[in-house]
């Protein structure tokens, strides 16, 4: 069995699907962030796989490094926001944060 590009794409696609499922079904804000991390990792894996099998060079890895940088800053900011939301509402369930309704 020869491991090729399609196998890596399959892993990344299933990972993306699981991340999307997590984002859509979770009410906990931290759970939604976990799903976003899965999606970002799936995209990064695709970048590296395409670079290794198709493009050559290192530009795919460069993009993956930027994805890691942005994911780290996103996690820091989002978790700080989650902490402030918890201080204000005593809950981080996304369906209870309804101050702007009506």
């Amino acid at each position: 069995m020869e491991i090729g590009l399609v196998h890596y794409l399959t892993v990344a696609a299933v990972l993306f699907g699981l991340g999307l499922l997590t984002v859509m079904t979770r009410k906990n804000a931290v759970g939604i962030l976990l799903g976003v991390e899965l999606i970002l990792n799936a995209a990064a894996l695709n970048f590296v796989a395409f670079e290794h099998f198709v493009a050559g060079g290192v530009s795919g890895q460069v993009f993956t490094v930027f994805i890691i940088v942005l994911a780290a800053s996103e996690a820091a900011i989002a978790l700080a926001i989650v902490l402030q939301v918890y201080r204000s509402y005593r809950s981080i369930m996304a369906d209870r944060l309804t101050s702007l309704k009506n």
Partner: protein
Amino acid sequence: MPPLSALVFLGLAALTLGSAGVVAFSRNIIHSALALLGTFLGIAGLYVTLSADFLAATQVLVYVGGTLTLILFAVMLTSRIEDMKVSNPQAGLAAAFGLVTVVLLVLGKVATQTPWPGEAKPAIPSTAKLGHAFLGEYLLPFEIGSIVLLAAMIGSVVLARRAVKRSWEKG
């Protein structure tokens, strides 16, 4: 008996996707956060098989050492430990499954019907080339990335602190 590289790939893919499944379906937010560790480690291993050794090390250092620790801190700070069983409710499963099925069908069709150049290549180290790319062609985005990190650091400190008035500030 499949070759060793195929066995390694299958093991890493199983680790990645199994942990991701626990992240997506566990009823306990702490189990979800800890299962993310397996996903990150599996992806780091897949990076090694794709000759991206620097990225594998970075993945372990940044995600496992930084992001995952941060997420666990957030879970501990925002959940009441006693009602941990209901701290990770799910909603809208049917719509989510429908959308995910459609997305996977489209992605699978594209991935299988496009004629990719599919020959396997040996995994060779690429850290030196990556370093030259960052200090040459991609120097400006690299520096902008560091500014983004600095801004995110200051922003999260400002957002997460409590507004405390010292006694000597009031007068």
